[in-house]
């Protein structure tokens, strides 16, 4: 249940950002969650909703954007994005794939009304 700790940090960060930027009402929060982090989207959403109930963020809806793992072949340039690392190239068979991403935990947007 690392979703609890992540939801707590998330609500705290959103609150701080909204305050810094003078946003009175946040209606949506877009958060990129790397697929390697094994976060259950519905759990994160439910805990977040519970945490913000009765606060200024009560009306904010969580939108979870999947952060896929990027595997790229440095030899032929083939690239794929998936839920876990791909370690051999589907095009040239090379085993020297360069893997990145999949660990993100980033707030990518806030929605407000004007």
């Amino acid at each position, binding site marked *: *249940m*690392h979703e*609890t*700790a*992540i939801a707590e*940090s*998330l609500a*705290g*960060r959103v609150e701080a*950002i909204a305050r810094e*930027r003078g*946003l009175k009402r946040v*209606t*949506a929060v*877009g*958060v990129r969650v790397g697929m*390697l*982090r*094994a976060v259950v989207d519905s759990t994160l959403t439910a805990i977040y909703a519970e945490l913000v109930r009765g606060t200024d963020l009560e009306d904010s809806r969580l939108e979870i954007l999947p952060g896929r793992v990027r595997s790229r072949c440095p030899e032929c340039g083939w690239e794929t994005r998936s839920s*876990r*690392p791909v*370690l051999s190239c589907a095009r040239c068979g090379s*085993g020297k794939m360069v893997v990145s991403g999949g*660990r993100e*935990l*980033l*707030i*990518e*947007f*806030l*929605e*407000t*009304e*004007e």
Partner: protein
Amino acid sequence: MIKNAVRIKMKEEVLRSEKKIAAANRRRLRRAAVAGLNIIGSPGAGKTSLIEAVAGRIGKGVGLGVIEGDLASDLDLRRLNAIGVRALQINTGRGCHLSPAMVASALEEMPLEEIDLLLIENVGNLVCPANFDLGEDAKVAVCSVPEGDDKPAKYPLLFLEAAVAVLNKTDLIAACGFSRRRFYRELKSVNPELPVIEVSCRSGKGAVSWARWLRNRVKEKRI
């Protein structure tokens, strides 16, 4: 009045404060020349046993300190104190992993000047602890034979984050029908570079290699 939704784009780290605290822990360990290792594995994988196994083998001149993370109880602390290991217990309550802030307060209480190797035993769990940097030098993934040979495939993040995997309870390989071939194949499909140390805490087999690996981390830190 109809209100328009306005989307404000940004890139803000969710775990910003956790990352800051972890970085401060890392600086603190570096200043004190302490090698800090975050030991992660399932409940019952043998994390505490692996610490007990090295306590007598780590060698004179290497001060050992342990931070024990558990939801509740001081059972592991007592096990370590009984063999003369300096240890401190953190009870996380409902928390399924140690947080960098918990480790920061434990570091306040530890006599770091007397310690060269700090083993941080995380809460028994293969998922959550892999998600949080505590400020350690490296993560150690502990798995044990009775858990099955499929753990690297099921919990890839830990095996991607770790600097070494320890396969414990190798004395049970035949009894459990554990396939070494499958284990190594799954591991290689996640992290082909990851070294593995096979240990049986019960028979003591492999404990020397495990202790040597830890001593090398201490040496690296002293340079």
